[in-house]
């Protein structure tokens, strides 16, 4: 079947098998391997992307369900001028990543979290990161990065 959507600002159309997951579509058809797959039960959040502006686990969505949608992956988060998005920059500054495997999903979830709760407390941040597992960092620096990324996003006046 044919699916069409906008991915990182680019229109894409492809012929896929109906059971193709959005993760498979992004990784295998479009070569966007920044979206990772860490589990098969929708629990780890490594695959988090933005679907029409909201964080979604791409492993839990069929490519066909994203028909006509606006998809942003980690590759398309920054503005394209070579600068990192404030949340990406904050993760680096606060050492919010180690092996980097959870990181794309974590950053995409973080941006959505800040859009939803612009002044989130530590507790709100921790509770809302429930769906994203990181095995490396112990989350401490992820929480710090999220707060500093939120400040950066506020300065920039966007999400």
């Amino acid at each position, binding site marked *: 079947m044919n699916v069409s959507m906008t991915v990182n600002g680019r229109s894409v159309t492809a012929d896929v*098998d109906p*059971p193709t997951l959005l993760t498979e579509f992004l*990784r295998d058809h479009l070569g*966007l*391997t*920044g*979206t*990772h*797959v*860490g*589990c*098969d*039960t929708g*629990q*780890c959040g*490594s695959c988090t992307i933005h679907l029409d502006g909201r964080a979604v686990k791409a492993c839990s969505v069929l490519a066909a369900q994203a028909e006509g949608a606006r998809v942003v*992956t*980690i*590759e398309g*988060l*920054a503005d394209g001028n070579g600068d*990192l998005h404030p949340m*990406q920059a904050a*993760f*680096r*500054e*606060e*050492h919010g*990543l*180690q*092996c*980097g*495997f*959870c*990181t*794309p999903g974590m*950053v995409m979830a973080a941006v959505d979290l800040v859009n939803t709760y612009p002044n989130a407390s*530590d*507790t709100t*941040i*921790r*509770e809302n*990161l*429930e769906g*994203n*597992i*990181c*095995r*490396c*960092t*112990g*989350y*401490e*620096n*992820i*929480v710090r990065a999220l707060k500093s990324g939120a400040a950066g996003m506020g300065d920039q006046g966007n999400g």
Partner: protein
Amino acid sequence: MGEPTTKIGGSTRRSEDKRFLTGQGRYTDDINMAGQTYACFVRSPHAHARINSIDTSMARDADGVLAVFTGEDLANDGIGGLPCGWQIHDVSGEPMAEPPHPLLAQGKARYVGDHVAVVIAETKQQARDAAELVDVDYDMLDAVISPAKALESGQPLVHDEVPDNRCYTWELGDSGAADEAFERAHHVTSLDLVNNRLIPNALEPRAAVASYSPGEDHYTLYTTSQNPHLARLLLSAFVLNLPEHKVRVVSPDVGGGFGSKIYPYAEEATLTWASKKIGRPIKWTAERVESFLSDAHGRDHVTRAEMALDTDGRFIGMRVDTKANLGAYLSTFASAVPTILYATLLAGQYTTPAIHARVTAVFTHTAPVDAYRGAGRPEATYVVERLVSQAARDMGLSQAEIRRRNFIPTDAFPYQTPVALNYDVGDYDATLTRAEELADVAGFEGRREEAQKRGKYRGIGYSTYIEACGLAPSNIAGALGARAGLYEAGEVRLHPTGKVTVFTGSHSHGQGHETTFAQIVSDRLGIPFDDVDVVHGDTDRSAFGMGTYGSRSLAVGGSAIVKAMDKIIDKSRRIAAHMLEAAEADIEYDDGTFRVAGTDKSLSMAEVAFSAYVPHNYPLEQLEPGLDESAFYDPTNFTYPAGSHICEVEVDPDTGRVEIVNFTAVDDFGNVINPMIVEGQVHGGLAQGIGQALLEGAVYDAESGQLITGTYMDYTMPRADDLPSFRVDTCNTPCTHNPLGVKGCGEAGAIGSPPAVIDAIIDALRPLGVTDLEMPATPLRVWQAIQDAQGRQVA
């Protein structure tokens, strides 16, 4: 977070982060090759079964299928099993039982998830569909899961040739001296301890892409390994009988390892062999459920431990009897973990003069068990620190006091323990003092009373751990049964333009070597940080290596790089002497500049490098051109990181829920190259240690041998809201025997924290009569312990 300077000691922000943050990381599953096919492994659904026959005909005929292989095909090609890297000797003097570990089952399946066949097809989905069509005729057999039970007579045997499922019984220490101490003890503290089985769960599942090039008779294997050179050596020399120089192993970006990616596994070995068979590249990526079933698990000890004390609360003797579960097959370092890496740590930070340990290692119908973050040392620390904390309560001493009475004093180093190790340096009192300060122990009773008013029970727990990193030296390890060297290799290449490439045999899967190693080189050679590139993870680029495990990268791998830089500086000095027309003895070197003593005549490292490659004004009669040096470093001793962890919890007696309200870790890691990275390593280790103490535990059904905790829905991974914010600091004494003075920090968090957490809960629940608690201390377990204690008090 610390100043981001690029010098040694600066919290340089990581070079690798840019690619990880923009989706440009290159993990094994991101790699695709032209003509690539896909593998799916058929796994045993039974814990123990005889395989009568395997009918592959339907699968072979399925759409897109290129081949189906079974153990018989491998045997026909003379393919060997996976080797064990450490030979332990039994108390009888005989070598341990070492049953074969075939890549694909031969005649029997021995755990749920054991590899039985592999299907290779054009697409992932076709491989999966066809794997369903492989018809295996099994006779189900009884399984045994618990190591204690497996030793009893009449239990099912995992390997027919291994009686009582006993791989070995091994002893360390002087049993006579220990017994004598117990005879004259004023008090004996005894505990029965279970160190719960864990599943490492690196977030990136294992994966491999194997290919064979007939033109060059050459194999390339991309794999999620912590040590690609070791994988190449073992696969070529012991498993596949391939010429090692015709095999390239690449571990690109790897998404965490924690030990589980040290070992060569059946999957990548089978793929490498099969890629030549079918003449196409083959890819396999584990589904998470496969990680749960077939990654090597960790811990799983059952221990009886006793401590003998004199009237002053001094430790005079210790006896430990441990049963260690090895799982169904011997994984690479499985035999060393509960012996060399465990019993040798039982002295802890203390002067206990007589210690005896007895370890029985047992096969069961479960996944192989091997090193997981800390490997043996968390198990030892759990035994020692639980005993010490219980002894303090028994003797009416404070947790700090009993420890201070028994610490090895700073003037006693180097200190020879009764369990083989020789500690070079440390200051245990310093980390404890700082930790008590940071944890505000003085204010604890006030906080306890305040919590009591809210109906919560608050408690505090201590753990003053020691560990040993950078396993070495090779010759002694060899005498103890190691079958590999334990050095590391490094190469430092100056380019004509003054840029530097560093090649290391260490491997980063989150630790940040590309930053830390570049800091060391930039600092020492006076070359800008951005002009130093660190290459790792490719056997065709780094000449040799032993990889990354046991917190060894900086202490061993970093030292090899320092040795290579020493050679660079030595040669450069001679070049500079020639260029500056001075005697070599008059050339001073500092921060990248060679200077003729007492003059303003000088040359930079970059100028020397240029001359080394464009040797027009160059001492060609005495020196070869070029500036590229390599070195191997074999340490003379382990390093001994140590520290003090203090955990404060609040327990809700109605629900059994435990909240960690404060966690303080003060560690001695020796010199620190990048404090930001070190702190991150501590955080991650603490999360895994707290995970073990409160949340994680692999559970097999005792009868069927099915893994009950086989997904993220059943196995509780620590999430952000399960963990506190950590208070972390260091009090460092530099290691005395490696050139950087570093000790290693990767595992400390996971080693030190579990007993602190459990003891904090026991301390909290003392008023309710709770005296013991098993890990993981889930709400149910804690609630049950409260009910049981109350029942006892009523009765």
